[in-house]
């Protein structure tokens, strides 16, 4: 957290900022596009601003937009956001040993502020939690600096996108950039044949079940894909997967 002086006065804070800075233009472009996509998909400026400031998770924001616009029930939107965000649950298991010495509110705030890129950079830099208090502070300060620049790039660019959106005619269809972004993240997750199977099954099931009310096709598609993949794993364990 950038506002704690023990972190932002630490040299590792600046180092964290410096090491995320090459990623900053990419993060900003993604934020800009998300800002435009939110407004162009029919959200109000106030809603889009609140979403930027509070949700702070591009993929779940973009996934929620078509559901909000379609009037899906809240639980369907939250369940979808939860599933999209499940990759962070995996990250949190790893980050636990680095943060567990802190008071709960501090580690939860660190968790909230640590998005994909910050996690990847942090995990690449520190293979193991530090043994000493000074080492733990350094790691925490690095994470905080990294998170801070990432957060700033994202928030500023998102607001610029929200402001810019009103200058662009809706007929241009710029909301589609949000779908392309999700498609890119989807491709980045397609790291094994089983995950590709999950994507194909979920995509097909979401289309087949589209006529279900309340956007339930999304929930059904996720459930069908996950259950099918777990079943395939059971029947034919993939190499490297413990049964």
């Amino acid at each position, binding site marked *: 957290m950038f506002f704690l002086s023990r972190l932002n006065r630490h040299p590792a804070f600046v180092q964290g900022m410096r090491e995320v800075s090459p990623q900053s233009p990419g993060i900003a*472009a993604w934020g800009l596009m998300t800002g435009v996509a939110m407004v162009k998909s029919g959200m109000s400026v106030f809603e889009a601003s609140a979403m930027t400031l509070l949700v702070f998770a591009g993929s779940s924001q973009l996934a929620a937009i078509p559901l909000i616009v379609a009037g899906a029930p809240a639980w369907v939107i939250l369940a979808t956001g939860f599933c999209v965000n499940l990759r962070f649950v995996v990250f949190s298991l790893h980050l636990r040993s680095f943060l567990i010495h802190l008071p709960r509110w501090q580690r939860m705030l660190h968790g909230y502020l640590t998005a994909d890129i910050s996690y990847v950079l942090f995990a690449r830099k520190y293979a193991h939690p530090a043994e000493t208090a000074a080492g733990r502070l350094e790691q925490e300060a690095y994470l905080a600096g990294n998170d801070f620049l990432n957060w700033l790039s994202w928030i500023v660019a998102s607001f610029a996108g929200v402001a810019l959106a009103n200058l662009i005619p809706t007929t241009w269809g710029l909301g589609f950039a949000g779908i392309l972004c999700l498609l*890119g993240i989807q491709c980045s997750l397609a790291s094994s044949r089983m995950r590709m199977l999950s994507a194909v099954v979920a995509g097909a099931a979401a289309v087949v079940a589209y006529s279900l009310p309340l956007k339930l096709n999304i929930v059904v598609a996720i459930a069908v894909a996950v259950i099918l993949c777990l079943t395939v794993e059971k029947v034919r364990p993939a190499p490297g997967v413990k049964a």
Partner: protein
Amino acid sequence: MNGTDLWTLAVIVGLALVTVLTRSFFFISNKSWQLPHWAQRGLQYAPIAALSAVVVPEIITVQGTLISTWQDARLFAAAMGAGVYFWRRDVLLTIVAGMAVYLPLHLGLGW
């Protein structure tokens, strides 16, 4: 100007809580604990399934009806985007390349 409503704001607050919950999932409790095996394995497959379930209908259907023409800018943009992703492994390039295909087809040819 789009309108603001309380329901949407409540959903946004809910999504913010989802962000906090998922990003700090395993260090909310002081006690170390484990998910059951099936849930650990499910973590491998749920995120990509959720994205695909949202994305695919937005590319190949109009309000849930399968498109019946290949003259749809979204098909070409998505194919280009996915191709560029697997070539360069960059989400930003995926968006840029996809939109570079989408906008001329959509605005120029009306697809």
